[in-house]
């Protein structure tokens, strides 16, 4: 299921503005990679290019390539819709579909694509996904209530269940815990630990403790100033980044001297 990602010399533009410059990195399957860095350095931007979600923003485009198990996501003839089906995404703010029940939310990837599936298969999928997102026990008796009736942390796990229900190879998470309270945060961190068995996971976080707790490797991005493009400063084993980074600004950042 999980796949390797290779980013080669990636520049990302918002119209005329170059937001990110020269990013290259390789992400192993079945691993958790954390993107850290100060605000505005381009973490989210890079993350979104991995499943071509940046294209949703008018005027955004990339230069460079991203390979998924060797296949270029930006090759000609590649359908972004297919890319996104293989590379799921979880956002900063939980965003269950407000018009759908919990069950429908989990099935959204299937239902919205007009795919036919027997009731039994649907039930299976719902249970499997909700279990996968550690939410099954909490909601199994009220699958029919609206998804927005859950607490923030539950909503976020519902979004994760929704993302994994389409069996992606990769799961991208953009600050999935930043709107959650500490208990929910811990639940999600535990979940990431489990999901790693099956998926390649990339997570953006502002919280360095979280990065050091959940990730195998960490990429540190930085920005020289407002209006300058963000750059990948250092990419290494998480333990190394937090204990003995090779670049001074990484050291400054993780030790809290700025940011």
């Amino acid at each position, binding site marked *: 299921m999980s796949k390797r990602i290779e980013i080669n010399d990636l520049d990302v533009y918002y119209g005329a503005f170059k937001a990110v410059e020269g990013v290259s990195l390789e992400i192993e399957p079945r691993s958790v990679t954390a993107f850290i860095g100060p605000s505005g350095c381009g973490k989210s931007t890079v993350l979104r290019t991995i*499943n071509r*979600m940046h294209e949703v923003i008018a005027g955004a485009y990339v230069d460079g390539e991203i390979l998924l198990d060797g296949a270029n996501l930006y090759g000609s003839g590649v359908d972004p819709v297919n890319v*996104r089906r293989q590379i799921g995404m979880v956002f900063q703010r939980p965003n269950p*579909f407000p018009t759908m029940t919990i069950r429908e939310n989990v099935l959204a*990837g299937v239902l*919205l694509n007009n795919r036919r599936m027997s009731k039994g298969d649907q039930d299976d999928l719902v249970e499997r996904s909700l279990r996968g997102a550690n939410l099954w026990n909490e909601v199994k008796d009220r699958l029919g209530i609206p998804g927005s009736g859950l607490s923030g942390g539950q909503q976020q796990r519902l979004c994760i269940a929704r993302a994994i229900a*389409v069996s992606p190879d990769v799961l991208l998470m953009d600050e999935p815990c930043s709107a959650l309270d500490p208990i929910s945060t811990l639940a999600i961190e535990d979940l990431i630990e489990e999901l790693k068995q099956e998926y390649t996971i990339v997570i953006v976080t502002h919280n360095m403790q979280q990065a050091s707790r959940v990730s195998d490797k960490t990429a540190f991005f930085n920005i020289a100033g407002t209006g300058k493009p963000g750059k990948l400063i250092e990419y290494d084993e998480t333990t190394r980044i937090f204990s003995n980074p090779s670049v001074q600004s990484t050291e400054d950042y993780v030790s809290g001297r700025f940011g």
Partner: protein
Amino acid sequence: MTTTISAPRQAQNPLTAGQLPRWSPWATLLAALLVGAAVAGLIAGASGAQFSIVTTAVIGFVLYLVAITVVSQLIEGGRKATDRFVTGLVTGAFLLALIPLVSLVVTVVANGLARFDLEFFTYSMRNVVGEGGGVLHAIVGTLLVTLWAAIISVPVGIFTAIYLVEYGKGKLAKAITFFVDVMTGIPSIVAGLFAYALFALFFGEGVRSGIGGAVALSLLMIPTVVRSTEEMLKLVPNDLREASLALGVPKWLTIAKVVLPTALAGIVTGVTLAVARVIGETAPLLIIAGFTTNMNYNVFDGRMMTLPVFAYNQYVSPGVQEQAYFDRAWAAALILILIVMILNIVARLIAHFFAPKAGR
């Protein structure tokens, strides 16, 4: 909250610089109204005219504004005084706006109730002379014509709004936005003349039909539908679009299955407003839908009576038993308003059941 210590503390509390007590605006208002009543009484006495509530209210209101502003100026300072003045003004404006509303509703209800009977809802005007008769034919006509107007304008309006919000960026979108606004300014009678000219082109002179009326009304309805739907679609959080797209759902399905359902409640409300805007139109229907006393269920053939045309006609050419005609006119107006209210309530119910459920 204890009264015992508040007095000494207030003396030293630097934060409590002059404030009027909470009841002071009400007291001032009461006093002002009393003075107003006294003055109105004097005027009435002097001129022999009737005591005027209007004079009382006007004098009372002006006095209140002056008094509260001056008192506040003295005790609380200029900024607070301005605040109180504006508060008074704004509230006054609101109450003033309620007057025509209440007057209209009272007039319509008071006059309309006379003929609010079973016969009125079950009879047409076929073979009715003088008293009696009903508006079933006009109710049916209004509902059919409006329904068809909605059938024409709702898809066009919603798809246009979708184009503007989800696709349009360039000159075309700008042009559409501009001309939709221009379209709101088409006088209804011109819409009727246009629809007549259009139908006469195909069906010959003298053509009259419900569908023609529906076309005329669509012209008036579309801009409202576009505008309100556009606003509603803009309110759908981008989060949801992104969530759907990130699941590998194509854009059109995202719009159809995520964006539209989320905005549904708002769109329904907008459509209801648009229907309300046109359901009472008279001038275009007089021209193109025509006039009849008979039942007609077929919008594609023959004259079709509608409530506003009925009300207008009853008012314009009554027979000797005037009152019977006027009663019917007002009752028809009342029914029209009731239909709009029912539509509104239905829209609200739809909005209530389909609205995105608030979290927690």
